[in-house]
């Protein structure tokens, strides 16, 4: 599904040069549920942004769903983002002026789907996350957990091949976090590849595989071993 080879990403200012990713290589298979862990500043989010085609990179190659996306134009990357990738952010990133239904329909508008198709997909997605009765609510009228479920519905409405979740439960209490994780697992069970950046070891334990990132490199890539301290050796890239 996703294959990165020797990716490098450097942020430059006049004074400082920061290597966010160095020789970053990772392969995620279709249907995987991968948790990406690592300390703050290790490069997790940069990886996620590059994986989601929100940022470009300097060195290396990146194949997404079999397609080399290294040299694509902004328009081509936007199209792939719209059709193949669903994002879930820590801070939900709903558009405050749009109601729940409009937020969920938004990616479908950029796909130029007709109104009927948009509504049908948005309704299905909202039903899946249990918010079919809140379509006309504004985000500010929902709890944090509900907002995140709307964000998940928005990501699902486009029926993406890949879900990228950046600390999806970071702003939620434990009960809501569990509900969101349940949802992600359900989505993954339906065949969608999920990559989730998290600090939370409890969450990462629920993924099929764990990737540990340190100083911009993958330092560990293992299937989750339910025996504490006994992570089995995995298939690193």
């Amino acid at each position, binding site marked *: 599904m996703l294959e990165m080879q020797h990716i490098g990403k450097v942020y430059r200012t006049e004074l400082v040069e920061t290597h966010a990713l160095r020789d970053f290589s990772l392969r995620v298979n279709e249907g995987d549920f991968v948790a990406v862990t690592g300390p703050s500043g290790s490069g997790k989010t940069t990886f996620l942004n590059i994986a989601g085609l929100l940022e470009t990179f300097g060195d290396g190659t990146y194949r997404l769903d079999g397609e080399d996306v290294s040299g694509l134009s902004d328009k081509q990357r*936007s199209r792939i*983002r719209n059709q193949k990738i669903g994002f879930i952010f820590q801070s939900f990133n709903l558009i405050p002026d749009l109601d729940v239904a409009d937020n969920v329909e938004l990616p479908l508008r950029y796909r130029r789907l007709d109104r009927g198709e948009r509504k049908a997909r948005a309704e299905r997605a909202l039903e899946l996350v249990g918010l079919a009765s809140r379509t006309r609510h504004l985000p500010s009228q929902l709890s944090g957990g509900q907002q995140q479920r709307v964000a998940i519905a928005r990501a699902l409405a486009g029926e993406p091949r890949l879900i990228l979740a*950046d600390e999806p439960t970071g702003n939620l209490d434990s009960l809501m976090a569990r509900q969101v994780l349940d949802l992600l697992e359900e989505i993954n069970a339906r065949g969608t590849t999920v990559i989730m950046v998290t600090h939370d070891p409890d969450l990462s334990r629920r993924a099929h595989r764990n990737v540990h990132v340190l100083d911009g490199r993958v330092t560990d890539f293992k299937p989750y071993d339910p025996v504490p301290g006994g992570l089995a050796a995995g298939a690193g890239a």
Partner: protein
Amino acid sequence: MFAHHLRTAWTSVRRSPVLSILIVAAIAVGIGVSITGLTIYHMLARDPIPQKSDQLFRVQLDSWDPDSPFFEGGDEPSGPPFWLTYQDAMALLESDIPKAHAANYRSAAVLESDNPSVAPDVYGIRATTRGFFSMFEVPFRYGAAWDAAADQDGAPVVVIGEKINDELFGGEDSTGRTVRLGDDEFRVAGVLEHWSPHPRFYDLNMTTFGDPEQLFVPMRAATDREWAINGNTSCWKPESLVTFRDFLGSECVWVLFWAELPDSASREAYMTYLNGYVDQQKAAGRFPRPMDNRLRSVEEWLEHRQVVSDDSRVVVALAFLFLIVCLLNAVGLMLAKFAGTAPSAAIRRALGASRGDIVRQYLTEVGAIGIAGGLAGLALAATGLWSLRQGFEDLANVARLDLSMGFTAIGLAFLAALAAGLYPAWRVGRAVPVRFLKSQ
């Protein structure tokens, strides 16, 4: 998608009403000022009789002083006098080359009627020949111009304007009825529809944009009654001018002369005729200056008389510079406004909106703001023009918005707003989305 962009624009306007109002105000002030200037220019420069302005010619013959060229309102010689002598005008009326022609001058007389509710008053009168009406396509509501015999014998007939017909006769068909002009009864031959060419090209003396006279009489009827000239009279030759008859036979110029020459052949023939006439007069001891006969089309005449002065052009240029200043302010305000919405744009980008989608969304907003600014600017322009009409009588017929200027204002505001919004929209479109996604 456009409907969604419009809805987003409306939401954005509601989210930052102060900035939105300031942007609309900046555009409105610029449009108001530029449209005010442009309206004046547009009215000054417009063709008053577009269907045949290239077929109507002001006739000029240089019968002026051999020792000094004719000057009129400037330091430079003006070429041949603007007017003809009475004797030359009467002679040119004998030509059958033009399709139509008219000698005319402005006079005035006291008008009385049987209507007791209308007090006698002094009215301007256009003394002319019947060709005036057909040549300038003056529309009639009732009746028609007087006949050729009236031109010859100076019959007391009159064509009246709709305004006077309304006042004196309640708007009824008054042909055949009489009005008293000066000491004599004049029979109404025709009643005009509203007719008000601007600029008043046929006679730019006294007023460039005033309304035409409401009374028209045969020129012979006016001169027979020795009605005074209420326009320019210029004389160069020391002559004894004791009686009005002396004046008519003098070298004083005061008669306006227009000829309708529909094609180049008739123009050439008429010019040959004029040259022959002047040669004849030279042989008789008149026309001491070198031959300089002119036929100026309506457009050339307006240009020659500098109806659109350089000052008017400078005013328009300054008004548009002011619009640019206003737009630069609008650019700054839009940058501030759009910076506040960059996080939303970043979310849209993450969801698959291309840069083009984002730019189009913002341009929809600035376009809508531009139209609002255009409407507000139109209101300002209307107010400005109203003020000008109150302050300057001569602008009463000029300082008015017409439909074309209304559309121009809206179109200009829309394009100006797009031009002003292009850079701010492009900047938001170019912004890297990840900068905003974490901090939401």
